């Protein structure tokens, strides 16, 4: 299940639209009960991808009830309308389609993919899952046990362990500090009542986006969605308020000892999302530092040093907070050397302006690779939902391209001075560093 965080990462590399400049990516309208409907017609292939996003992600988990949004998402498809979970599975899989639900940090997403000929069946199932979930007690219990087992198993992965530890350091007191799936303890405290309450409070039409992409027209989409979701009443009051922005903390560090041949190193600090003007020069800076196989870290750590297979930096923007991370996996004894290279390269970017060729390559890649980000109906659906949720506007692709195009070497140096001070970075190592 793609989390909104991942969807937003897509935005980090978007630029020129695949359509002619100035043409919005999708038709947009607001239905009477507040649902935002987005439609992108891609008639050539007879499939339809649908995304329903509710502003009901893990950031809204009550304290001590971490993992509730995720549990709610996974149980949505386990019984709805007149069908049991198994009957839903059988119905959608019989036509070779998919119906999945799950929460990310910021939103709860229900995804549908069907052949165009089966779109009505798919939408019937989707509407049941969104509007008429039954949350059977036995299914909630089953999912709690499965999620706990999956959390236990994920502790095997050094990348996962490192990312979680870093998030704890980066976002103290903020929901982003906790994994979307919660912890084994917090999930163990959840029951059917929690799920029903969460769904009732957060799944509402005026905080819902529905995107339909593929062999469907805007008129068809409106008709089919209104028929199924039009009578969904808008509740009184305003949607729940999101969490306050995260506060910063002095840089901390953590080593998680594991019997592994390789250490996973992650450095990170808070950053900004697409709504902040610094986001665009920061995107370019991150790309030059560790974005691709032409990046500085790739050259020094991998190509010249032979120190790692995986080495990269990236911006991870969320709606309610963002981080910038630098990571590598290297043999245990080389942790100090790789960390030193990270520090040197971060500091160098603040000290010395990037070269014109390097800058142009990064900008050309970020702008020129955009059509590759929107080459399937599923990618388009994810993209337009994320753009809408962040309030970036459906012409965002054009404006992104403009903003990246305007970035100068001085801009890159300015954001590097602000965001790339090695002393500001939290550090996590998983493995057996010397």
């Amino acid at each position, binding site marked *: *299940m793609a989390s909104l965080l991942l969807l937003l990462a897509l935005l980090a590399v978007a630029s020129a639209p695949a359509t002619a400049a100035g043409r919005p990516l999708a038709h947009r309208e607001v239905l009477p009960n507040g649902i935002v409907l987005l439609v992108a017609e891609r008639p*050539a292939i007879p*499939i339809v991808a649908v995304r329903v996003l509710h502003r009901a992600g893990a950031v809204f988990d009550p304290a001590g009830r971490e993992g509730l949004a995720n549990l709610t998402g996974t149980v949505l498809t386990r019984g709805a309308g007149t069908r049991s979970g198994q009957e839903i599975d059988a119905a959608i*899989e019989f036509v070779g389609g998919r119906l999945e639900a799950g929460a990310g940090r910021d939103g709860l997403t229900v995804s549908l993919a069907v052949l165009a000929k089966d779109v009505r069946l798919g939408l019937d199932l989707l509407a049941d899952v969104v509007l008429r979930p039954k949350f059977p007690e036995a299914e909630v219990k089953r999912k709690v046990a499965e999620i706990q087992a999956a959390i236990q198993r994920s502790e*095997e992965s050094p990348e996962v362990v490192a990312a979680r530890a870093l998030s704890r350091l980066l976002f103290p007191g903020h929901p982003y500090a906790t994994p979307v799936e919660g912890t084994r303890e917090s999930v163990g405290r959840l029951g059917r009542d929690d799920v029903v309450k969460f769904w009732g409070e957060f799944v509402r039409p005026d905080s819902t986006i529905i995107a339909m992409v593929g062999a469907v027209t805007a008129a068809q989409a409106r008709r089919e969605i209104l028929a199924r979701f039009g009578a969904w009443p808008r509740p009184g009051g305003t949607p729940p308020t999101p969490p306050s922005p995260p506060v910063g903390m002095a840089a901390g560090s953590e080593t998680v000892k594991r019997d592994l041949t*390789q250490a996973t190193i992650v450095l990170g600090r808070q950053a900004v999302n697409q709504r902040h003007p610094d986001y665009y020069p920061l995107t370019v800076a991150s790309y030059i530092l560790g974005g691709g196989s032409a990046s500085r870290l790739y050259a020094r750590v991998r190509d010249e040093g032979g120190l790692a297979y995986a080495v990269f930096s990236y911006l991870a923007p969320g709606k309610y907070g963002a981080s910038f991370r630098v990571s590598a*996996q290297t043999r245990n004894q080389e942790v100090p050397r790789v960390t030193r290279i990270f520090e040197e390269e971060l500091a160098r970017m603040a000290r010395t302006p990037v070269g014109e060729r390097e800058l142009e390559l990064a900008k050309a890649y970020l702008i020129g*690779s955009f059509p*590759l980000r929107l*080459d399937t109906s599923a990618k388009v659906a994810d993209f337009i939902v994320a753009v809408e949720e962040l309030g970036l506007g459906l012409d965002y692709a054009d404006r992104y391209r403009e903003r990246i195009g305007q970035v100068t070497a001085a801009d890159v140096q300015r954001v590097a001075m602000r965001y790339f001070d090695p002393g500001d970075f939290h550090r996590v190592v998983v493995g057996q560093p010397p």
Partner: protein
Amino acid sequence: MQRLLLAVVLVGVSVAPVVAQAPSAGTAAVLATTLNNGLRVLLLEDHRSPIASVQLWYRVGSRNERPGATGIAHFLEHMMFKGTHRYGPRQFARLIEQNGGQDNAFTTQDLTSYFVNIAADKVGLVLELEADRMRNLLLEPKEINAEREVVIEERRTRTEDDPGSFLGEEVSSLAFKAHPYGAPIIGWMEDLKRITPAEIRAFYDVHYVPNNATLVVVGDIEAPAVLDQVKRQFGGIARGADPPPVVVTEPVQNGERRVIIQKQAKLPIVYLAWHVPSQKSPDAPALETLSVILSGGRASRLYRSLVYDRRLALEAGGDYSYFSLDPNLFWFWATPMPGQTPETLEQALLDEMEQLRSEPVAAEELARARNQVEASFVFQQDSVYRRAALLARFEMIGGYRLLDAYVDRIRAVTAADVQRVARMYFPADRKNVGVLLPLP
């Protein structure tokens, strides 16, 4: 690169392990030709997005390696990005990126694939770069030795520190006594440390020849114009000697083989694997169908029985690699839920096989599997990358037109066929078993 042993059955989104797309017109629109030097060329116009996928597939993988030099095909794949006489180290990636393209490569047991997805008007540049590195690699010892460390780190990431891959490697090497499929694609650590620049050069000279490659371009192109560019870029490359064929036939397995690994992990893992025929066999479509019935989604047997009804497994699945050149393994895997033992899961998997042997699958199950395969074909058409990769895959096993017959082959499978292959290929006394027991 690892075999697809990590398909996530937990979320029930795996459709057929073989994913395919055939335009309703089948492959009729493909412009196919073979240059005088033996380079196979497949071009397909798809004008929905202003992009193209350019893919060069070499018929060489770990299958073509000899003992002592395992991992050399994948090692060479890395070296393909380390410079030619015309373009120095790292120039390939730089040129692709500054033209807004994304490039990568992967190595399997049977083949090595290089791909670039890029704005369609840049296809000419990619063709030039691919033609250049087909024969003109520098292969400097200094670069080879730096990259050796990178590949060793890759092995640490993918295998040494990954319980599932680690166990899979052990089971493969147990299942194959003679055939190179028993060695890991990434190679044994001892070989990676030893392989010499001269060996890499020799391997390159033998396998990287136009008559051992298939070039596929799908996207917003004019096929005849691209064919002219292909001829210009690749036409002057000399045909090489045909690479030596792989002649090993794996001897029949006599008796069960089992390996138990203790490793730092959180939950046990169970693998079962049986020898099965390749897609050349008339039994392949039935094996493919059996794979979908067992693990294609949440309504599939393994999910419904082991995960849902009996709550034994966190995840469970099966995989038949339809595209394997030589007879390979049919894999089953399961991760026990906390409190369940590997023995219980192994028995549960065997029970499922016994049920397939003893009674025919239901009409509804068979129809669902067919529909899933057919729908996956249509979904694949949404991506030019996937369209190109699929043409290449079918070309590698005998010709891209086999793609047209694939769905028909699946459609023709009956419940009796599924029962027959279940009886024929999964005898309890010839299984390969791997168990990972977690160390705290």
